[in-house]
């Protein structure tokens, strides 16, 4: 029965429909796999009783011939950023110790309403602030992939949705939610050899997602195939009166976009994403090779310019901390989570926040507070907001010439937990260089496995970035990349078969 974890979600849906197995069996197989792979630290909470209960209900719906959801009976992992009613939710921060939400996030509710079965909450960087999943209060996550030149090296899965990425890659769920503020879905997807999609800002509701930087945060999907991404996105997206920034437009059947036909499609290659320094040569090679394969499949490859790309990172690292410093002001030791006593109210606030937030979160709160100070506000924060508009305009201009943009997801493959670069926050920020621009512009972008590094054998993801609400176009291109890449869509069974 354990082989059930090898299936893609689309295959499992078919098997469930044909009554080859039940959701309870499918769910149990994943719970068993989770138990065998605990050393990955992908989950911070497992909810087996709840999962089996939901699976049983799904099986009942099916046997009674009731209306079934798009993800009926499918076991999913839930990033610990999503509030789940009755299940501890901490965004992997000490400051939310023991917080059990009295309500459900819209995205997790949508997924439940479509019949899916939550297996547990996945590990992540504290408040989604990180690129390597090294800032979680619950410890680092191990990437199931191994560097063939050094198989004993502990590789990071990327962040911030590192637990979700590792869980999907290792078959510890069929798919998982992620969230992406500056690359938090796409970077771990690239590092773990899976498909990760950040839809257009406003496509999914942010209600019940623990906020990091509200003008950038967006829910997204992590799966092993492009088709599964299409199914999952359709299940979780859509209008929600509880989020004033979610856009009221119909959610298409994304699977219909997977025609495999990209003839005549114009694919832009931005020169600025190909710097002389700072791009791994294996990544560059896969990028060039894939562009050539897409050309052979009938697409037109067009060189484009996004001249302000180099300013995206400093812009992001002003806007995101500024918004975070404001969003995280709510953690005061009064309403939920940790409290560390003090003699006065103010001292209690300070003691609680000092003990509750980790180093990286504190660093970003301090920076955010700094750039909002009088004398810095205009030259830093307001300036960044202006450059953000210019970056958006450059994308607008580019989409007059091309349908999608093809770029690396990350400048490197997965690296070691103890590598020198992990000690320097400024160096870590550089890993976001290719994901941050589309985040600032609110564009949909998918990271899809496109090849393996010749040097290390590690997976390499490429990003397809589309114009606003053109999720269907980028899924179509990603589907073609998936089929020409020769990459495996089966999980890496770290616990053995």
């Amino acid at each position, binding site marked *: 029965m354990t082989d059930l974890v090898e299936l893609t979600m689309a295959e499992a849906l078919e098997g469930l429909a044909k009554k080859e197995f039940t959701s309870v069996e499918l769910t149990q197989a994943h719970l068993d796999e989770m138990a065998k792979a605990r050393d990955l630290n992908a989950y911070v909470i497992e909810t087996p009783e709840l999962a089996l209960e939901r699976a049983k209900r799904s099986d009942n719906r099916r046997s009674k011939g009731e209306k079934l959801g798009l993800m009926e009976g499918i076991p999913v992992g839930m990033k610990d950023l999503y509030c789940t009613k009755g299940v501890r939710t901490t965004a992997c921060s000490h400051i939310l110790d*023991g*917080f*059990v939400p*009295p309500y459900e996030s819209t995205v997790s509710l949508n997924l439940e309403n479509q019949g899916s079965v939550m297996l547990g909450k996945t590990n992540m960087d504290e408040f989604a602030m990180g690129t390597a999943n090294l800032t979680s209060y619950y410890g680092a996550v191990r990437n199931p992939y191994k560097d063939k030149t050094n198989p004993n090296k502990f590789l990071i899965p990327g962040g911030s949705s590192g637990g979700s990425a590792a869980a999907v890659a290792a078959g510890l769920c069929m798919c998982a939610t992620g969230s992406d503020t500056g690359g938090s879905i796409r970077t771990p997807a690239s590092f773990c050899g899976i498909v990760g999609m950040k839809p257009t*800002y*406003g496509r999914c509701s942010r209600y019940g997602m623990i906020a990091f930087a509200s*003008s950038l945060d967006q829910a997204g999907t992590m799966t092993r195939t492009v088709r599964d991404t299409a199914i999952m996105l359709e299940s979780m997206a859509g209008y929600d*009166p509880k989020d*004033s*920034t979610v*856009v009221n437009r119909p959610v298409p059947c994304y699977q219909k976009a997977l025609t495999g036909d990209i003839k005549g499609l114009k694919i832009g290659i931005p020169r600025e994403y190909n710097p002389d320094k700072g791009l791994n040569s294996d990544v560059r090679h896969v990028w060039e090779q894939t562009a050539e394969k897409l050309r052979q499949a009938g697409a037109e490859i067009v060189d484009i310019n996004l001249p*302000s790309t*180099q*300013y995206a990172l*400093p*812009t992001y*690292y*002003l806007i995101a901390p500024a918004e975070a410093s404001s969003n995280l*002001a709510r953690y*005061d*030791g*009064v*309403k*939920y989570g*940790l*409290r560390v006593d003090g*003699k*006065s*109210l103010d001292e*209690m606030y*300070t003691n609680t926040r*000092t003990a509750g*937030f980790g180093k990286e979160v*504190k*660093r970003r*709160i*301090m*920076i955010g*507070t*700094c*750039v909002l*100070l*009088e*004398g*810095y506000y205009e*030259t*830093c924060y*307001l*300036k960044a*907001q*202006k*450059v953000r*508009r*210019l970056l*958006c305009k450059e994308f607008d201009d580019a989409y007059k010439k091309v349908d999608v943009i093809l770029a690396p997801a990350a400048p490197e493959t997965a690296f070691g937990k103890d590598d020198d670069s992990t000690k320097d*926050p*400024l160096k870590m920020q550089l890993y976001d260089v290719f994901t941050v621009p589309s985040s*600032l*512009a*609110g564009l949909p972008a998918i990271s899809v496995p496109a090849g393996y590094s010749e040097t290390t054998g590690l997976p390499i993801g490429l990003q397809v970035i589309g114009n606003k609400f053109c999720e269907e176009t980028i899924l179509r291109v990603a589907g073609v990349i998936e089929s020409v890449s020769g990459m495996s869509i089966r999980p890496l069974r770290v616990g053995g078969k």
Partner: protein
Amino acid sequence: MPMPIDKDMVKRLGILSRLSIPEENTEEMVTEIKKIISWVDQLKDVNTDDVLPMNSVVEDMDLPERKDEITDGDIRDAVIKNAPDQMDGYFLVPKVVE
């Protein structure tokens, strides 16, 4: 004039953000903030004359207003359940009036 980046600034940021920065870490924080501010200084090379600041990428959308009606309520106990300290349905905090 912007406040110089020094130990006093770090103390001020600590007060504003309710974080206590131990004396021995203040210098490290000064260096850190200096590094960031000098790195983002490159944005001044970008000409942003006549460019309006952008708060949101969905700015072309009108802010929707929902009907002014009660949609939930009577969940005091559920809300207060997560409080680290509580009494009779109230959040408890250290004494604020002498």
